[in-house]
């Protein structure tokens, strides 16, 4: 029941957003997050966006994996 899924905000109306999660759209509350805009990716749990997903940070983590990939190739 702790499942949280990433979704993309495609519409904002007051504090409610419409998000697209794996091709399906649904309404979520945006009241637990700050500074969001259309196009942002958010983590959704129990009808609420609970955190923003940071693209730059995702890339940094991937860099971490890549380093390992290179070590593996040596």
């Amino acid at each position, binding site marked *: *029941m*702790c*499942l*949280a899924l*990433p979704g*993309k905000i495609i519409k904002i109306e007051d504090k409610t957003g419409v998000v697209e999660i794996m091709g399906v759209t649904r309404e979520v*509350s945006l*009241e*637990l*997050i*700050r500074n969001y805009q259309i196009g942002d*990716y958010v*983590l959704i*749990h*129990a*009808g*609420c966006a*609970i*955190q923003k*997903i*940071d*693209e730059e*940070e*995702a*890339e*940094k*983590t*991937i860099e*971490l*994996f890549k380093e*390992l*990939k290179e070590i*593996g190739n040596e």
Partner: protein
Amino acid sequence: MNKLLSIFRDPELAVKLSKKLSDYEGEKVNIMEVCGTHTMCISRYGIRSMLPESINLISGPGCPVCVTPVYFINSAIELSEEKDIIITTFGDLMKVPGSKSSLLKEKAKGSDIRIVYSPLDAIKIAEENTNKKVVFLSVGFETTTPVTALTVLKAKEGGLKNFFVLSANKTMPSALKALALDEEVGVQGYLYPGHVSAIIGTKVYEDLALNYGICGVVTGFEPIDILHGILTLVSNINKKNKIVVNEYSRVVTDKGNEEAVKITDQVFWPCDSVWRGIGNLPQSGLNMREEFKEYDAWKVFNLNPSHKEENSGCLCGEILKGRKKPSDCKLYGKNCVPENPVGACMVSSEGTCAAYYRYGGGDK
């Protein structure tokens, strides 16, 4: 972004990581994956079978349904029998056995019990049924509690008089500390729960690292996340590093989601709490604050459940503490199966017994 996220499932990378892990030749390490969703992913992707015997993954108490005590289910059932009541609940709770029945059985008998995806949906049901009392069964950890708190604030704002919350919400840090200090469990490192951490941040884990030498990695839920997290943990345990590493920084920050924490604090305050199979853990639960007592179902309906836990032969407690495996339980797969569970760990798909049953334990 989706393309970016697919890298976290890259099979080539997974093979490299598992090769690196299987080459591990150091001392035996005990790692606990705290979160139920991690347990599920580890079983689904067969991650245990990729690890050498010297890397021991223990499944922890991080499935909220599994640690919800029997008395909570009994009280929910007692409430469902009252007149003009609608019980609203997350679907996972339906099959959890109470002393004599489950919510699913009570629904079949005619009680008005409805599954909701969000507590916010329960509010809508209350608004549409003003002649009924609507009770939301609130379980969950830090990830879920802010949503419930928000719901209570909204109910108050909207002046709803027929909405109530029966709460048994729990918090992770003190439970993790109690387990870390339990020598029989012998945890050396934690794979911390990603979505709990999205709310509470990573700073809270520093105490265990700095003062007790239990290192940790916060990680996501894709196979690469988990494999890499294990690799980082093993290396830090071996080097005796007292650190917490955040490998889920795309979602988790040091401070977490301060807004969500603030909303939780507005509605709830910490209390001691009974974990199914484990017992009472100090300061590991949440009660609703006095200002919200008209929404607190425990108070409004004057419920006084007996906290005595029955012994059904279920080993969930030992399993949640990582001392036993599901296959050690005599009932596993025989009397206890997902369709007809004896213990709560067999109910939720995130429960250790259910994950083992569905995907296999993957032990060597």
